[in-house]
């Protein structure tokens, strides 16, 4: 049989057709310098500032909307839409002076009435505002004094750092009042936020990208890039590929194991930004199945068993700082404990012996992909515990909703002896960082999942929440931290960093230690 010639013809035509997807369009994704492309891992659930629960999404929203204050790179609150604030001598009211002459990007004037509309919305008990925090029950009313001044009347006093820290977070950002009138759908959920920020929302394609365009009427410094494109790329390896191929200039959270090779790549820069997320194994301190964990000596023994330096070096590739207190050093109120748990397996063994806990059996769980190298590091921790003779079952792992359903449960329903968590306050103040040791925050009310209850610590936390003097406050938190550290309700591990990789073609990529990135003033290198 002779070879039918048509097959060759069709084959060639087929490949030409298939290859033609690329003709005429040029190298896609490679954009002109007026657009900064940032690869992010999460698809925004909502762009409503009030409904934010994800830092990455909140970072994007913050470029569009601004709050009365602004947390700077050291964690301090600086003037933003408010130029000054004054606390009444009895601490029962606060007056904010507003920046004059501003307009929202839809032309609506920014004034005290706009602030009232926004704060009333966020503080409305029927609003969904998961991160509104203590202000929801501490603020009695918001009143317009005159167009340039607004007053918050308190029903309970709050420490200045707490109030100013909270009021500077995304849930209290200012939207154009026109878009959030009470009774309109925008009041309950606002997906087209219009603010005063350096950028305005231009386009959003769910699952694909959020595009911001420069707000040319911005009151502050003008950003360099005309547009910023936030591309949703859930796959960690693809995010890295985007920056390596020049199709994105910035990528958040690349694979940690690639950090050494990225650091050698001359075309990219690696920023291991400091964070505020403490990673730890919470121990069940009232454990019924494993009552030995109720013993402080046993919990201290577990802490001495962990070779944190080795795990950070070999499993986290340096992207963490070993814990030196129950919270991160970037948080106000941090103080270094005098007796860090140095790796000492012999001491760990002897503590277990003293506590009659040799042959201790515990079961552990850890999430996968929630924190840097979480499950891998959990396996290291388990091995270190085995090395001192603890019989460790697990670690088991599961997807995040199942995990939360397993570990964030009231004490009576607890089924595991130790679980890995990472806890990061949203504003850099100990009040939020330490609430995880407050017994009133035990599940189902909060995240105090080690069921730790120490009257001294609770008292110090309550005092510090309202203490007006900054130094006294810091001292109270310091005392609480030392006590918690000594009681070891956790196996303290490390404070993870926030890795950002960006192209050598841009500069001005920054971050705030609240696991936030900051690209507003990025510019071509």
């Amino acid at each position: 049989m002779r070879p039918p010639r048509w097959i060759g013809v069709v084959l060639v035509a087929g490949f030409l057709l298939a290859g033609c997807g690329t003709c005429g369009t040029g190298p896609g994704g490679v954009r002109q310098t007026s657009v900064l492309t940032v690869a992010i891992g999460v698809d925004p659930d909502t762009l409503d500032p009030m409904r934010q629960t994800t830092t990455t999404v909140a970072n994007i929203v913050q470029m569009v909307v601004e709050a009365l204050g602004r947390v700077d790179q050291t964690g301090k609150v600086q003037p933003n839409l408010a130029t000054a604030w004054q606390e009444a001598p009895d601490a029962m009211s606060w007056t904010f002076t507003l920046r004059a002459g501003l307009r929202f990007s839809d032309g609506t004037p920014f004034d005290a009435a706009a602030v009232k509309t926004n704060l009333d919305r966020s503080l409305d008990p029927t609003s969904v505002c998961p991160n509104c925090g203590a202000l929801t029950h501490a603020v009695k009313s918001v009143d317009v004094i005159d167009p340039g001044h607004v007053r918050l009347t308190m029903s309970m006093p709050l420490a200045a750092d707490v109030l100013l820290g909270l009021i500077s977070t995304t849930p209290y950002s200012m939207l154009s009042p026109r878009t959030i009138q009470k009774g309109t759908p925008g009041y309950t959920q606002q997906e087209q936020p219009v603010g005063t920020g350096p950028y305005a929302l231009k386009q959003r394609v769910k699952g694909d990208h959020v595009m911001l365009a420069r707000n040319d009427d911005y009151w502050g410094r003008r950003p360099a890039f005309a547009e910023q494109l936030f591309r949703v790329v859930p796959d960690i390896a693809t995010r890295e590929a985007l920056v390596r191929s020049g199709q994105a200039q910035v990528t958040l959270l690349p694979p940690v194991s690639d950090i050494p090779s990225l650091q050698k790549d001359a075309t990219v820069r690696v920023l291991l930004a400091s964070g505020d997320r403490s990673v730890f194994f919470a121990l069940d301190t009232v454990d019924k199945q494993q009552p030995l964990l109720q013993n402080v000596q046993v919990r201290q023994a577990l802490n001495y068993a962990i070779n944190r330096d080795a795990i950070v070096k070999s499993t986290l590739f340096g992207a963490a700082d070993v814990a030196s207190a129950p919270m991160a050093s970037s948080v106000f109120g941090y103080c270094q404990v005098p007796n860090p748990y140095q790796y000492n397996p012999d001491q760990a063994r002897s503590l277990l012996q003293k506590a009659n806990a040799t042959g201790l059996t515990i079961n552990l769980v850890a999430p996968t992909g929630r924190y840097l190298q979480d499950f891998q590091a959990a396996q290291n921790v388990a091995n270190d515990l085995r090395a001192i003779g603890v019989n460790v079952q697990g670690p088991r792992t599961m997807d995040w909703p199942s995990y939360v359903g397993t570990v964030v449960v009231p004490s009576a329903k607890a089924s595991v002896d130790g679980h890995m968590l990472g806890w990061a306050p949203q504003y850099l103040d100990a009040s939020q960082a330490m609430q995880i040791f407050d017994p009133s925050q035990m599940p189902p009310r909060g995240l105090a999942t080690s069921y730790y209850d120490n009257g001294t610590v609770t008292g110090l936390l309550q005092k510090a929440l309202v203490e007006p003097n900054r130094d006294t406050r810091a001292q109270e938190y310091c005392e609480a931290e030392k006590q918690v550290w000594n009681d070891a309700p956790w196996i303290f591990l490390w404070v993870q960093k926030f890795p950002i990789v960006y192209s050598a073609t841009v500069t001005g990529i920054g971050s705030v230690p609240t696991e936030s990135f900051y690209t507003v003033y990025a510019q071509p290198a």
Partner: protein
Amino acid sequence: MLSYVGRRLLAAIPTLWGVATAVFIMARLLPGDPARVIAGVLATQDQVDRLRWQLGLDQPLPVQYLDFLGRLVRLDLGTSAHYGDSVTGEIASRLPYTAELAFAALAIAVVVGVLGGAAAALRRNTAIDLAISAVSVVGISMPTYWLGLMLIIVFAIQLRVLPAAGADSPAGIVLPALTLGLLSVGLIARMTRSSLLEVLGQDYVRTARAKGVPPSRVVLAHALRNALVPIVTAAGLQLGALMGGAVVTETVFGWPGVGRLLLDSIFSRDYPMVQGLVLLFAVTYILVNLLVDLLYVAIDPRVRYI
């Protein structure tokens, strides 16, 4: 013919009801509280409770089930717990991306698969046949995830000619469609090869050749058309498999289709969205099967539906 289609569609209703019930139960068997997941771990219990009430999750399961079926009859899939929009609207905005991807992938699979399979059949037991068979087996066995990353490394990082992610430039579809399409090439090529070989051995093919019909016409008009029925079946089933493969491919390439939406919705315990998407996949399967059956009529005049 029309009454046949009508009967098939009617018969689909119990299937869909079964799927709806199964997915309703399975979603609720997953551990994890959707209200807590949506509100975030920082939310207070009051906020979680209010959300649970808003989502109707405080109702007993039978009430939730009847409510779900009642809405379903009115083609109302409810409100997404994660996005806060209507499930139908959300799916409608994401479905075109997956449809585009699945059809592009199917086109690649069919063109390359049928041509490769035909070449292998016509060149049976030669090096060409062996090479095509080898490539088919590799294609069938290769994990989508790995293939996608390899394509990204070659075409996006090394050659810098194609985007690694995103759906906003026309070239963005090339790599995901190739990844997804190559998955099915092997199967269709092997199906074409065996089906064509069988037909090429038939008496009427020998007769056609004997009476002097040109070889290209023998292959195209006599052999390939008769060999098409199993190929069309395989291609139809592949379209279903492609919808499933889209879950992985869309995640690797950041493609905003319904496959990734399903994955995100499972992780956020968005019951209404998961239910809506699984039903959508079921409807797609049912419709594709029906379409394949109807195509038989066009391909093979002996097939008649009354």
